[in-house]
């Protein structure tokens, strides 16, 4: 029974570096060989990944049932877009009410715009979290949804800031593979490192039993707020990337509203609530499926029968899948565990000799 149960830290590090290089290589190949459409989906996977990992930190790891994620994504999207659009573009777009001069003249590059989106979203998360985190599970969910809706309604009506229902068009398509996957890498690194520390344990303890956690010396409110704000920050980052991927944003329910939160929720449930790698997998699967389901909205053949496409079919199928997953497969792909080298190693090698893994 001298079988090693765990890989050394060195081996872990080595494998991870190899993996990252491998991924970079794959992304490079993708950029060379994929067509524009496929590339866009690939980038969307990364954007969804950031949304999923950030929501998972709040919902899955800390156990806060927040439904307000779309609100933070929206803040990030608008902040970044308003910063990357040139003053001339803004002047032309704001036809109902002119944009306030301060905002018109703000202009910066994509990186700082994205960063600003994250910071402002984090600030919004702080403002929202402060009252909302005092509430219990169900109420917290509704309150967070309410706040996200307030943010959306504000975006809809503060025409001199957001251009109201018209939204922002002509946003430069800065989001490419490297920005999207680069930011995903940063997100995973940051949140992964956080979870893999005493703070991560504290957050999980809060998820398990708030009162016991408090009694063991953890300032539950402060840690919940911390989780909320970090999740909000990366939601804002994803918002910026999303805006520069869509090239137009508006405060509709489907674009940056509760529907988006629902999509992200599906991703993390599918991947496994509480698992970072699960969230990424869930995001990627969702991106592919959702895109693939588009075919049902055009006429298609089903075993030789011509079926007329119906608009909105995608969401219907996704909802059904979601409900089925909730009923039959609650733990999702990864459950609460991560896809680590150790786990892979154990899974591959520990099957021998009936050893307990």
């Amino acid at each position, binding site marked *: 029974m001298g079988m090693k149960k765990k890989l050394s830290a060195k081996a872990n590090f080595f494998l991870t570096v190899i993996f990252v290089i491998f991924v970079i290589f794959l992304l490079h190949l993708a950029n060379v060989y994929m067509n524009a459409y496929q590339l866009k989906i690939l980038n969307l996977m990364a954007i969804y990944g950031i949304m999923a990992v950030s929501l998972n930190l709040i919902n899955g790891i800390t156990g806060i049932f927040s439904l307000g994620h779309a609100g933070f994504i929206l803040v990030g999207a608008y902040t970044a877009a308003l910063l990357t659009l040139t003053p001339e573009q803004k002047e032309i777009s704001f036809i109902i009410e002119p944009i306030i001069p301060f905002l018109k003249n703000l202009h910066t590059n994509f990186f700082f715009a994205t960063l600003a989106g994250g910071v402002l979203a984090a600030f919004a998360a702080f403002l929202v979290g402060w009252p909302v985190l005092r509430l219990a599970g169900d109420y917290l969910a509704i309150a967070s949804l309410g706040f996200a809706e307030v943010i959306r309604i504000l975006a809809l009506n503060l025409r001199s800031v957001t251009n109201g229902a018209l939204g922002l068009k002509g946003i430069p398509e800065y989001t490419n593979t490297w920005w999207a996957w680069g930011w995903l890498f940063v997100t995973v690194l*940051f949140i992964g*490192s*956080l979870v893999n*520390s*005493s*703070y991560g*344990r*504290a957050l*999980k*303890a809060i998820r*398990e*039993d708030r*009162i*016991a*956690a*408090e*009694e*063991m*010396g*953890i*300032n*539950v409110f*402060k*840690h919940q707020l*911390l989780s909320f704000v970090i999740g909000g920050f990366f939601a804002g980052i994803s918002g910026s990337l999303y805006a520069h991927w869509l090239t137009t944003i508006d405060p509709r329910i489907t674009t940056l509203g509760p529907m988006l939160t629902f999509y992200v929720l599906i991703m993390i449930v599918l991947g496994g609530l509480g698992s970072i790698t699960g969230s990424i997998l869930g995001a990627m699967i969702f991106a592919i499926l959702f895109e693939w389901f588009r075919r049902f909205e055009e006429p298609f053949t089903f075993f030789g029968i011509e079926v007329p496409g119906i608009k909105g079919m995608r969401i219907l199928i996704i909802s059904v899948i979601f409900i089925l997953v909730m009923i039959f497969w609650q733990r999702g792909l990864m459950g*609460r565990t991560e896809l680590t080298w150790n786990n892979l190693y154990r899974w591959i090698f520990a099957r021998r000799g009936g050893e307990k893994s």
Partner: protein
Amino acid sequence: MKELLILDHVTMRFGGLVAVDDFVNTIYEGELAGLIGPNGAGKTTVFNVITGIYYPTSGRIIFDGIDITPLKPHQITHLGIARTFQNIRLFQDMTVLENVLISQHHVLSNPDADRILKKHGKDPKRDGNFWFWRAVLKLGYVDKEKQMKEEAMELLEKVGLIDVMNEKASALPYGEQRKLEIARALATHPKLLLLDEPAAGMNPKETEDLMEFIKRIRDEFKITVFLIEHDMKVVMGICERIIVMDYGKIIAEGTPEEIQSNPKVIEAYLGREWEYV
């Protein structure tokens, strides 16, 4: 003997119900004291008030010279009071080791509690600042984590749980879970340990082991123990001083011999459905 915990006319009212009625007592440093009484007498409520879960309707709680009445539970833990629960509240989905590691987190966090300590001329318990950033960026954190793990494993060894350290808490048998809860509380480095019915649900052998265990940790870790129990064997066996509660009030106090022959105590218990082990 040094006064460690002073309960100064503590009353806890829930609407019309008076759960704790003018509770006055002092716990002395190093003692092993017990709190007994029929079901519903208000014992756990006293613990909940001490640890800050409830804010008392009136009265004060003074711990080690600091008025902890307005403080929150996490601050009180940081100041040196730890507890276990009547119904085990372990972090079930986490391993034994992780459960104990959690208790060390407060040393990284809680600047507010440290400020209180400093204000009263005591040493802060925190080990420096900016631990959040250090933890995420892994700057000077790896050593800290190693140190925490070593301390945790040392503690687990002392309490005899080192062999199961990577098992999920939910996988442990009942007796070991109770032990783990006590270990987890110990890992916060308390001065005062509150045990809420530690022997509940245990068979006689487990109870014997527990009694030895509690005495040992009091001596070895140099802490003060205040426990609630229904099991008279435990109470009379290890407690040096016993407080008896009924209907929220203290009705008697003294050594085991004094309590056993106290007519008021006997009366309180005879009128109830109460098990005498």
